[in-house]
């Protein structure tokens, strides 16, 4: 564990020193993965499927503010929908506007959720999203997660039914409109995923906020277990096509990723925890101090070590003065006197 803590400190230092170059690289990779994922799911407009176009747009996203990646992702989705048919792009545009007005204008970290949720669903690890947003976000991040789930199901439905939704004639347009809207809004799988993700996000956030030992670990493990149970039970009741094995794999992966992220965000040593009680004129104080794990030793060990060194140096009959404590002026006077 201390080895990891040392590695983490080095990583932090490296990021601190080279963040000017590292941040654009991270943004570039994220944009690239997101655009490739959108192209794989929808992939109707040949121009956007070209890797050169994807690379150029990703490069642009690397230097532009992070919101622009979400905007470009939206443009990609709309462009692919336009290639399918006019009614599809119309519905996609209206859905995005309604989502922005009713949900996203109140949601924090919305860009991150909108980009990462469809990506996690596409990679088969959707459980990672509610656990990460529950750990690192607030209560309101459940709204962002819910919006991300909706976007994924919309894109997924359009991608899998692109052939049926393709524009043929104006006479068929109403039937296709019905197919598109009912396909998304009447899918039991969508409502199940929406409910599970929101519940797990709130649960993880609620547990990690409790001032108890190992709260983060409990939140991650319990979140994964609840995710699995809800999907298994809900899937059985609603008779969805979600496989239990894939849900179990997603839950385990989310658990591992959550514990890894925890090491960066909240790495403390509960064994070294200390509790104090004291009082002043108005209050009694019950203080719980949990030391952070940093580098080779915990902060508490470092404190005790530095204290011991200080004590030893005070006990020593003779110790060399540090360069700051030397009074050069006095020494110069003495040497002049000798002369």
């Amino acid at each position, binding site marked *: 564990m201390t080895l990891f803590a040392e590695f983490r400190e080095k990583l932090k230092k490296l990021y601190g020193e080279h963040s000017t170059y590292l941040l654009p690289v991270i943004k570039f990779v994220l944009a690239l993965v997101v655009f490739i994922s959108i192209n794989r799911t929808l992939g109707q407009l040949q121009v956007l499927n070209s890797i050169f176009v994807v690379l150029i747009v990703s490069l642009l996203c690397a230097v532009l503010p992070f919101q622009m990646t979400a905007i470009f992702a939206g443009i990609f989705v709309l462009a692919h929908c336009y290639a399918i048919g006019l009614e599809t792009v119309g519905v996609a545009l209206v859905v995005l506007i*309604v989502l922005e007005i009713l949900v996203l204008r*109140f949601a924090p970290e919305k860009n991150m959720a909108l980009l990462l949720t469809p990506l996690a669903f596409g990679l088969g690890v959707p459980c990672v999203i509610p656990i990460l947003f529950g750990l690192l976000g607030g209560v309101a991040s459940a709204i962002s997660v819910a919006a991300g789930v909706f976007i994924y199901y919309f894109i997924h439905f359009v991608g899998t039914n692109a052939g049926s939704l393709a524009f043929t004639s104006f006479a068929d347009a*109403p039937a296709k409109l*019905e197919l598109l*809207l009912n396909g998304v809004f009447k899918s039991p799988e969508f409502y199940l995923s929406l409910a599970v993700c929101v519940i797990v996000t709130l649960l993880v956030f609620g547990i990690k906020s409790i001032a108890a030992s190992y709260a983060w670990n409990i939140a991650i493990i319990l979140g994964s277990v609840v995710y699995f149970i809800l999907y298994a039970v809900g899937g059985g009741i609603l008779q969805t096509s979600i496989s239990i094995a894939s849900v179990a794999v997603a839950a385990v992966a989310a658990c591992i990723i959550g514990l890894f992220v925890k090491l960066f965000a909240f790495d403390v040593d509960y064994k070294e925890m200390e509790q104090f009680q004291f009082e002043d004129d108005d209050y009694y104080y019950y203080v719980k101090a949990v030391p952070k794990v940093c580098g080779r030793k915990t902060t508490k060990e470092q404190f005790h070590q530095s204290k011991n060194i200080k004590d030893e140096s005070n006990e020593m009959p003779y110790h060399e003065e540090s360069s700051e404590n030397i009074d050069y002026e006095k020494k110069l006077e003495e040497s002049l006197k000798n002369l």
Partner: protein
Amino acid sequence: MINKKKVQVMTNLARSEKNMGKKKLTLSQYRKRDYVGRALIGNFFLVAIAYVFILVLWAGAHITYLLDNINRMNLFWLGTMILSGFLFLLVVYSIIAYVVYVIRYKTIQSQIREYDMQLKRLAKIYKIEEEKMSGRQDTDEEDW
């Protein structure tokens, strides 16, 4: 010589400006009632737009039924339902918007207070520097 304290305060100020954005800084001109009132008026129009779009989506999802049965439908009842749906959505979103914007206003106000404090600190540093400069000029004149 570089004044370390001044650099520190100026860095804090620049960071606050970057985090809050110039738009939020102008919020100090508003009172809470005005800010929330303005946000609620905006909310009314946004909810109206969203409701129209929801109706369009709903109509799209039931377009075949609507086209077949529009002549037989009780339009007064349909209109009443649409209006009551809008009022319900408006009330719900007005409450949400009120709570969100009150919290936002309080958060931004505390950030602005912190920003003002930093500004005062900077002004104090400038004042001390000016006094030092004027003192040095006086001693130079006396020496002359």
